[in-house]
């Protein structure tokens, strides 16, 4: 019996739904051809993660996703020694796994990680394409299929949590924003199963609420939230209640803003 491929479980088997809004698919494909590290920029819930999944499926590569957090250390990425009966044993981290076996490694919300952690990416993200495992004394050459992708939300990421220039300049960037109205309606219809008319109203609410970004709301309402609202409605929840639960409640506790959003929802429902 053949050994299962070490990263076989990371292969995406069914096509994820992704609605392109521009030339991002072609751009990404070209970038992958030359294995250029990519940076996906955009607000939360606008489709960055879905896009990477779609591209990984499209290119037929396994996708290893790492959600970054501020307590993450370099060994969480590259691996560490573990103890077992016979002594210590090296365990590859997710990044090392991707490097060795040629997966797309996606570091979600990279700025959450501390800057000293992100520098381990530097030798991988330039012409060297290698990962030194300092503790193990090994130098891993990147597999020819390996690619590094990071996501980055320039909106709420504060200026203290920013990437170093030396990190930024190793990446090509794709900018994501809210999809155009028609595309967003299409997405909401597909993902939640509501009628186009209802999706259109949800998108209208989203568009109007985004006007409050920076004036009471820290972020605009995301496409993901609109999909959530749509899904609740598709389950038979009354639209006003669904919008309150999925669109208003999560984003703010400010009574004035809640009231304004409520009025906006009533303008369309």
């Amino acid at each position, binding site marked *: 019996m053949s050994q299962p491929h070490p990263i076989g479980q990371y292969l995406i088997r069914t096509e994820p739904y992704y609605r392109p809004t521009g030339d991002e698919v072609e751009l990404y494909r070209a970038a992958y051809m030359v294995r250029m590290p990519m940076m996906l920029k955009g607000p939360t819930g606008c489709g960055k993660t879905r896009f990477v999944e779609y591209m990984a499926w499209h290119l037929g590569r396994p996708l290893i996703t790492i959600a970054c957090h501020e307590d993450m250390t370099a060994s969480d990425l590259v691996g560490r020694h573990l103890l077992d009966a016979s002594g210590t044993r090296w365990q590859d981290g997710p990044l090392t796994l991707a490097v060795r076996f040629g997966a797309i490694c996606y570091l979600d919300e990279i700025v959450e990680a501390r800057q000293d952690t992100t520098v381990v990416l530097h030798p991988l993200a330039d012409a060297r394409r290698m990962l030194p495992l300092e503790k193990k004394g090994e130098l891993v050459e990147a597999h020819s299929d390996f690619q590094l992708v990071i996501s980055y939300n320039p909106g709420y990421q504060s200026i203290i949590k920013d990437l170093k220039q030396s990190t930024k300049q190793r990446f090509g960037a794709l900018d994501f924003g809210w999809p155009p109205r028609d595309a967003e309606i299409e997405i909401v219809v597909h993902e939640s199963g509501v009628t186009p008319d209802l999706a259109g109203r949800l998108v209208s609410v989203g568009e109007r609420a985004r006007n409050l970004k920076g004036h009471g709301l820290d972020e605009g309402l995301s496409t993901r939230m609109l999909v959530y609202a749509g899904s609740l409605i598709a389950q038979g929840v009354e639209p006003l209640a669904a919008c309150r639960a999925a669109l208003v409640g999560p984003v703010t506790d400010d009574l004035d803003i809640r009231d304004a959003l409520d009025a906006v929802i009533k303008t369309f*429902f």
Partner: protein
Amino acid sequence: MAAPTSSSAGVPFSAIERRLACYLRALWGRPATLRDAGRRARVSIVAGAICMPNIFPAGAGEGIALHRAAAAHAAAHLVHSMHRFPLAKLRPIQVAIVSLIEDARIERLAWQDLPGLRRLWLRFHVALPDAIPNATSLMARLARALIDPDYRDHDGWVAKGRELFEAHGARLHDPSMSREIGALLGNDLGQMRMQFDYGRYLVEPAYRDDNAFLWEFPENKSAPPPESEPAVLAGTVTLETAGAIGGDRADQSPDRARREISPPQAVPAMEVPEAPPHRYPEWDYVIGVHRPAWCTVRERRAESGDPRAIDEILTRHEEVAARVARLVRSAQVGHAARLRRQVEGNDLDLDAAITAMADLRAGRTPSSRVYQRPGRIRRDLAVLWLLDLSRSTNDVVPGAGETILALARAATAVVAEAIATADDSFALHGFDSSGREDVGYYRFKDFDEPYAEGARARLAAMTGQRSTRMGAALRHAGHLLSQRRTARKLIVLVTDGAPHDIDVHDRWYLALDAKRAVDEQRRAGIATFCVSLDPGADAYVTRIFGAGNYLVLDHLRRLPEKLALVYLRWAAA
């Protein structure tokens, strides 16, 4: 569908101003200026601002829904009523009806995009077909007929108005249709010998504004009507007059009224002890020694101004202030950390444990610090913000329309507001100079003082004059800071130019003295960071403060954010 908070008494506008502003911004994506117009019967639009009655007269409708309908209607005017109609030879009744048609036109445009607005407005159209047919009731019925397709009215004039309006449905974007239809209908009404007392006419329903802004009055063709001018359209009655007779003209919001009660008193300046002037040495690079006791720093009482000026600044920079506050807040909560290599804790620190095991097997003594636990890194920082108050800060920043000093004040206010809640102690001081014998030093807010009314008042009154003898001021600030018992001490100097003074002509003399002062303080454990607003500062700031210890602002508008950034870099370090 009931409004969230409705009551028959009506909610005062001042209580819901912000939610209405948010509502309008959300719907139209542009800022709306809302003002409290006190006791008025109807909304009026003056110079682009929506002046709302504080409370609509009793019986006009309930609570917030009416205010909301009124705000939405006025905002629709601001978006769709682009031109003013010339008054020309129109009779008052024609003016009233042209306004009515214009109202219907802009409302229809608005609800084509925002369907719920129609429902919002519709509930206030309560005219009935069996009302006594006079001009006012017919107009109210026409208004209803134009917004409510289910409304049936047997009156020929109303039906004609409806027909004409619908016939022009394709021209909704053209305001001249209002003028044409209105003039025609007004003429008809005149021929019906309908009495129209424009002295008593009030636009119906109550959410609609007085429409004065739609008209170009002959006497003020060019200038928009000033705010104080009462609504002049065909005798729109304002309650203002009535109120004035009663002697209780209450066009003040409660908020404003409260402030009136406590007028800006001369807030007593902070007690500056009548201490002898402080003398500090100054470095003379030509002879390579300190000139002992060369400069005299005199602490002066900072004048107090009106603390409300600071409130206004904060309102004006609302967006930045919110962003900075968020930054500071996130930096604080983000300060939880996993403490590694502890002697005790609730988790094994894997890396430390492995090292310990490896040590054991290698026959070495392992470290006992193999645990980790969640903890909080306490920062222990005192910051002294030192503002350059030299005369050049009175220069107007090109493009910003504000002086450097005003921008520095705004930035300081925004940052101080945000960090006042942080546990770090901070002080706001300023300095100027006029020769080595007279370096002025002002304390706007001191370390142990809360950032309150008094400090704001002093901040509001700061002025720019005289020169910049940086070294002496830095030494004095360092002296004050050295008395703080915190682990880390930081001076943030905000300046707009190179050091200079009236009695020094060597351009490097004061700069090198400042450098010397910075070096001395560094040795004493006090860091100095410079935020320079002088675009040509690169030439000397590196020399004075050292690489990485300064920031030259290319864009003064970003000053508040940058100041917060400086603070946070240090606070988070």
